[in-house]
């Protein structure tokens, strides 16, 4: 037997006997799958995306280094969009514009709605579990399924327009086909689908507020509404930040709803076109993965900066 083998096997044996190294070794085995998969499909992929953004490629041939050209495509698109070009000349700009508007509608609304629902659902009354289950039901359903159902409901002669007659008679737009209303339809579906989930988060936070603080406030003259304003809302601040950050991350990347309700082309006049749709199209329809990678980095920067600024402003870090 060669000397080196003996030496090696003896070394491993002594390693296994030493408790600390044995522990480390077995631990590494236990984390191996998680680490490998996530490093490969997470970090490696991200780095590769970054790398890819500097290349021109069509998946088959060689990769051609083009420096910042892909980013120039993005900026030219944005430039054209700002100067008022039509959707098909400036898809990325349209996607960006739409998703920002969408986020501005969805995130505040779903946060406030979730908080109010949680306040009501926090009352100790009979049957409150039924309500909690009802509000949360949309959150366990696939967004695609929800979108398919809502397409039917949003039809010109559909259920939603019917219900609207009771509130605003005469107002019954063709949500899906009218470019002025499509984005709002998508936004409404999003709020409907996710507010239940965040309601539960707020409920959790509310229930961790000690009861005697409310009692003290009660004795000091604060009625239910003032208790909500002065006690509940300020003490919910960390959870509000959490909900908004999660909401931002979800809204800026919204894909499923747009794909179903607007189609991969973004619907009439590109009204339902989002950045996510654009990245998908770029990668799999136009077959320009380099540009797609560049756009995804833009999206990442957008998400990161908005969530970072928000967390900084409210001095609470989510992690």
């Amino acid at each position, binding site marked *: 037997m060669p000397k080196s083998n003996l030496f090696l096997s003896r070394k491993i044996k002594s390693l296994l006997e030493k408790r600390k190294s044995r522990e480390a070794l*077995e631990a590494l085995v236990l984390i191996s799958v*998680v680490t490998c998969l996530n490093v490969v499909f997470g970090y490696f992929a991200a780095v590769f995306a970054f790398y890819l953004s500097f290349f021109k490629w069509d998946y088959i041939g060689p990769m051609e280094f083009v420096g910042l050209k892909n980013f120039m495509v993005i900026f030219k698109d944005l430039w054209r969009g700002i100067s008022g070009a039509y959707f098909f000349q400036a898809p990325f700009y349209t996607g960006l514009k739409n998703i920002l508007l969408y986020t501005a509608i969805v995130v505040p609304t779903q946060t406030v709605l979730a908080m109010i629902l949680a306040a009501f659902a926090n009352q100790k009354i009979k049957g409150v579990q039924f309500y909690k289950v009802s509000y949360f039901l949309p959150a366990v359903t696939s967004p695609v399924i929800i979108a398919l159902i809502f397409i039917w409901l949003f039809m010109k002669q559909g259920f939603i327009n019917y219900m609207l007659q009771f509130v605003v008679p005469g107002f019954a737009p063709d949500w899906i086909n009218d470019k002025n209303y499509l984005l709002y339809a998508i936004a409404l579906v999003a709020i409907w689908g996710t507010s239940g989930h965040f309601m539960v988060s707020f409920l959790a936070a509310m229930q961790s507020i000690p009861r005697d603080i409310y009692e003290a406030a009660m004795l000091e003259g604060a009625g239910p509404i003032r208790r909500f304003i002065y006690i509940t809302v300020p003490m919910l601040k960390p959870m509000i930040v959490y909900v908004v950050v999660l909401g931002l991350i979800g809204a800026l990347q919204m894909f499923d709803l747009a794909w179903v309700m607007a189609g991969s082309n973004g619907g009439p006049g590109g009204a339902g076109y989002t950045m996510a749709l654009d990245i998908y199209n770029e990668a799999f329809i136009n077959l320009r993965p380099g540009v797609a990678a560049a756009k995804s980095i833009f999206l990442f920067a957008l998400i990161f900066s908005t969530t970072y600024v928000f967390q900084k402003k409210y001095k609470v870090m989510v992690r």
Partner: protein
Amino acid sequence: MKSSLKPSKLGWITLVYFVLSLFAYIYLSPFIRSFVASFMTWEQASKYPPEWIPNPFTLENYVKLFRLELFPRWILNTALYAGLIVAGNIIFSSMAGYAFARLKFPGRDALFSALLALLMIPIFVTLVPNYIIIYRLGLIDNIVGLALLSLANVPSTFLMRQYFLSIPQEIFDAARIDGCGPIKTFFYICLPLAKPALGAVAVYQFLGAWNAFLGPLVFLRTPENFTLPVGLSFAFQRSMWTEYTPIIAGSLVAAAPTIVLFIALNKYLIKGIVIQAGKG
């Protein structure tokens, strides 16, 4: 809380019930409408003002669904995918969760933070590169290839780690004194004790996998291999049936498992989100 019903108290309770019920209606009516309409003909379902009683009561939408060869296949594919994800996460995330929680090895905390940091990367950044990797592995259009991506994901690992951290150190020490190395401890102590957390992981991963869309859309190419969400949206966009009611029926079938699961477990699920939110 208050047992006597003063007029103002009664008014308040009525308001609360009114608001709660109003929103319950808003959140439930799409489901109820869909359920009712799935038994109607498209002609009746598209009537305005909408009708609530199927007349005639018909199962033709469901028949159409299952007559399409693809639909049962989609159910199968989705079940297979969900099964793989659940199994993978239960096994691998619990292993890693235990190791990160209770074992000492170099770089443990740094590595864990690095894994957590991954959560910040939007899915679109890694989508195309992952597609290329899976493509190179020859696993495109294959449920296994798709499952590989989320087989052992970070949130499950985080959950398992939190759970193992909440088990007192003494139990692990006792196992060590009794002669168990880390891997033995995992199988004899951790797994049996972790049933609640494993249940939570199983449920959340099942929900996520069953409802997943973007991943299956990109990584599955031929209609035979689609999962339910992708298949249904495909059917919709290709207008596979001239009417819309089969799509509604299909949506309900797709949503049924998750809804049933949720209603059965709702107490635990909601509690689980409560606990996770507390940590977040």
